[in-house]
């Protein structure tokens, strides 16, 4: 492996590099920075909701802007780039190629992130992460709204370029001796998620342009005052973003496939079922987008079709869980930090999925839709599953990147606090949803049950916040002062098949 931080290099050399591990490092560092920026906004939201009435945020508009930028940041600037970081590091090594297929394109895809991010953060739009028309056309204040649209446009292109690169690297550049079945599951994860990106993103890219011209008043695609239909936007948006949730979760599952067998010191229970479930998920991810739209006035038949399409994804997700549990079964498990995050992530994945099934069942969704239940549901995925898998993997790759070990005790404390915090925040949000508390509200009526649940959620969020500070200290301190890692077996797991990727990639 390449020890990125061990050889002193001027920063600009990394910045202008096109080598996959350098680009991976850039993705990694920027995504961690955005994790903290987006997380800080989350803490503001939770602090505001600790009690009814305005607390520390002056007005509703500021609050609305904060949750919009919070969601946009964590999805597009943390989750997607952190997956790209891992993919950039490991996919070429796993398919035994010297770099990504198109190194320059790879660097360009990364460098589209800072301008996209700048537009989103400098604009600070308020129209939520789905920019629903006609609000986004006739009511959302510019230039923030327009900046958000351009920012997402840029990030969308970046993600398409990255996806093309992964697909070509895996399918065309893998070592000639390697069959596609021998490609490790983590690389399969990137193949699946990249193919979803290529099919899904163009639809939203088109919708964004239509939204922009609608805002300029030259078209009326989604503007009823000009004969347009806002529901058309909802279809275009969710056709991209339901599959996109699998773009986010599949790499995280791939990371768990890397961690679980190594720390269980057993081969994966069934690699073929892992591959099968990835491919199946990629396909069925396109059959359920309108489960977000039950309450828009869809007909009974439409709702039924999309409910069935949604339920069809459950067996494939369940197969991954089975595979993980069966791999751990009778394993000699070593509970080090990466493994704890992976196991915690799987447990939360399971609970999140159960909540998803409830949302999918049409009559139940009329209770949960647009309440805090939904916020709890998807955060168990985005935080509890995807961020957990990713953070576990960051610990796992830490010795390979820095040549040093992170502090194990701090890593475990980080996990335990985050796990407790996540359960406190997002399980209580499910309950709040059942009480009927709508999402995206700056203030709420002083109903004692609502206050109690909100306070538990806020305390949980603060616990996560503390744990993340520990994480940051650990990362910074250990990358400079941590004890040198035994690069052949940093986690002391033994066994030869546990580290298949020791090949050293030459810089070009």
């Amino acid at each position, binding site marked *: 492996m390449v020890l990125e931080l061990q050889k002193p290099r001027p920063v600009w050399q990394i910045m202008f590099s096109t080598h996959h591990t350098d680009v991976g490092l850039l993705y990694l560092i920027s995504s961690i920075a955005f994790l903290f920026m987006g997380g800080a906004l989350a803490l503001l939201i939770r602090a505001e909701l600790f009690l009814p009435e305005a607390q520390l945020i002056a007005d*509703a*508009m500021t609050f*609305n802007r904060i949750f919009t930028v919070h969601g946009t940041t964590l999805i597009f600037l943390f989750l997607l780039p952190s997956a790209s970081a891992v993919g950039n590091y490991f996919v070429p090594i796993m398919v035994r190629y010297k770099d990504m297929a198109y190194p320059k394109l790879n660097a360009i895809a990364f460098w589209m992130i800072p301008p996209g991010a700048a537009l989103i953060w400098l604009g600070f739009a*308020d*129209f*939520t992460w789905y920019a*629903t028309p*006609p*609000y986004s056309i*006739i*009511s*959302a204040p510019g230039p923030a709204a327009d900046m958000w649209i351009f920012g997402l446009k840029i990030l969308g292109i970046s993600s398409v370029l990255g996806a093309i690169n992964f697909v070509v690297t895996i399918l065309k550049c893998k070592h000639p001796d390697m069959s596609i079945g021998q490609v490790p599951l983590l690389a399969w994860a990137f193949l699946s998620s990249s193919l979803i990106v290529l099919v899904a993103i163009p639809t939203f890219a088109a919708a964004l342009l239509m939204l922009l011209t609608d805002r300029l008043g030259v078209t009326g695609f989604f503007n*009823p*005052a000009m004969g347009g*239909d*806002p*529901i058309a936007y909802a279809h275009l948006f969710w056709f991209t973003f339901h599959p996109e949730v699998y773009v986010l979760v599949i790499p995280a599952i791939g990371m768990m496939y890397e961690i679980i067998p190594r720390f269980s010191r057993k*081969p994966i*229970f*069934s*690699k*073929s*079922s892992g591959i099968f479930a990835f491919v199946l998920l990629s396909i069925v991810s396109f059959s359920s987008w309108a489960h977000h739209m039950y*309450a*828009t*006035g869809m007909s*009974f038949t439409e*709702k*039924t079709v999309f*409910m*069935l399409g949604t*339920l*069809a994804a*459950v*067996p494939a997700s*369940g*197969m991954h869980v*089975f*595979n993980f549990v*069966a791999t751990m079964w009778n394993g000699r498990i070593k509970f080090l930090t990466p493994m704890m995050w992976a196991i915690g992530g799987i447990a939360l994945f399971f609970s999140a999925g159960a909540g998803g*099934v409830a949302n*999918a*069942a*049409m*009559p*139940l969704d*009329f*209770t949960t*839709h*647009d*309440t805090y239940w939904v916020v709890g549901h998807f955060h168990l995925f985005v935080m509890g599953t995807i961020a957990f898998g990713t953070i576990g993997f960051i610990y796992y790759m830490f010795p390979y990147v820095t040549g040093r070990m992170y502090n194990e005790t701090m890593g475990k404390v980080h996990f335990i606090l985050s796990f407790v915090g996540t359960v406190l925040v997002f399980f209580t949000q499910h309950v709040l949803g059942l*009480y*009927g508390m*709508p*999402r*995206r*509200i700056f*203030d*709420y*009526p002083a109903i004692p049950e609502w206050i109690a649940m909100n306070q538990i959620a806020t305390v949980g969020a603060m616990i996560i916040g503390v744990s993340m500070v520990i994480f940051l200290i650990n990362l910074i301190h250990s990358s400079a002062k941590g004890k040198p890692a035994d690069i052949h077996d940093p986690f002391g797991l033994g066994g030869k098949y546990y580290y298949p990727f020791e090949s050293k990639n030459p810089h070009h």
Partner: protein
Amino acid sequence: MGHHSNWPEWIYVGVIIALMVWVGAEAWNVERLVEHVPADAETIIVTGQQWFWSFEHEDGRKEVGTLHVEAGKAYKFDIVSTDVNHSFNIHDYVVLMDAVPGRVNTVWFAPDKAGEHDIQCREYCGLIHYNMRGKLVVEEPST
């Protein structure tokens, strides 16, 4: 890979599929019943606009913010919006339907006993979305 028997996984997947079929069938059945609007339901036109609800009864009576209905009767809401999307919600009666400009969406309910319930907006609609609230007053039957 592949050298051990996979039957536990097949059973597991079979159980999940069976569970999903059951959830789907139940949901289909319940939703079918829930959506069947009784023939004698009175129509109330519900208009959402930034940031309040107004109501028009079949007999032409109009109300803003507070809606009065009678226990024991069925009501059908025709939900419209004059500006952006909203979502009309009486959580206690699981009434939820988006108010989308350019469309009329319907949902119905039959309050069973007298009392007061919250009406709120559940779809983000801008500045005062958080306080786009109203009251449902269910009165004793008049006859």
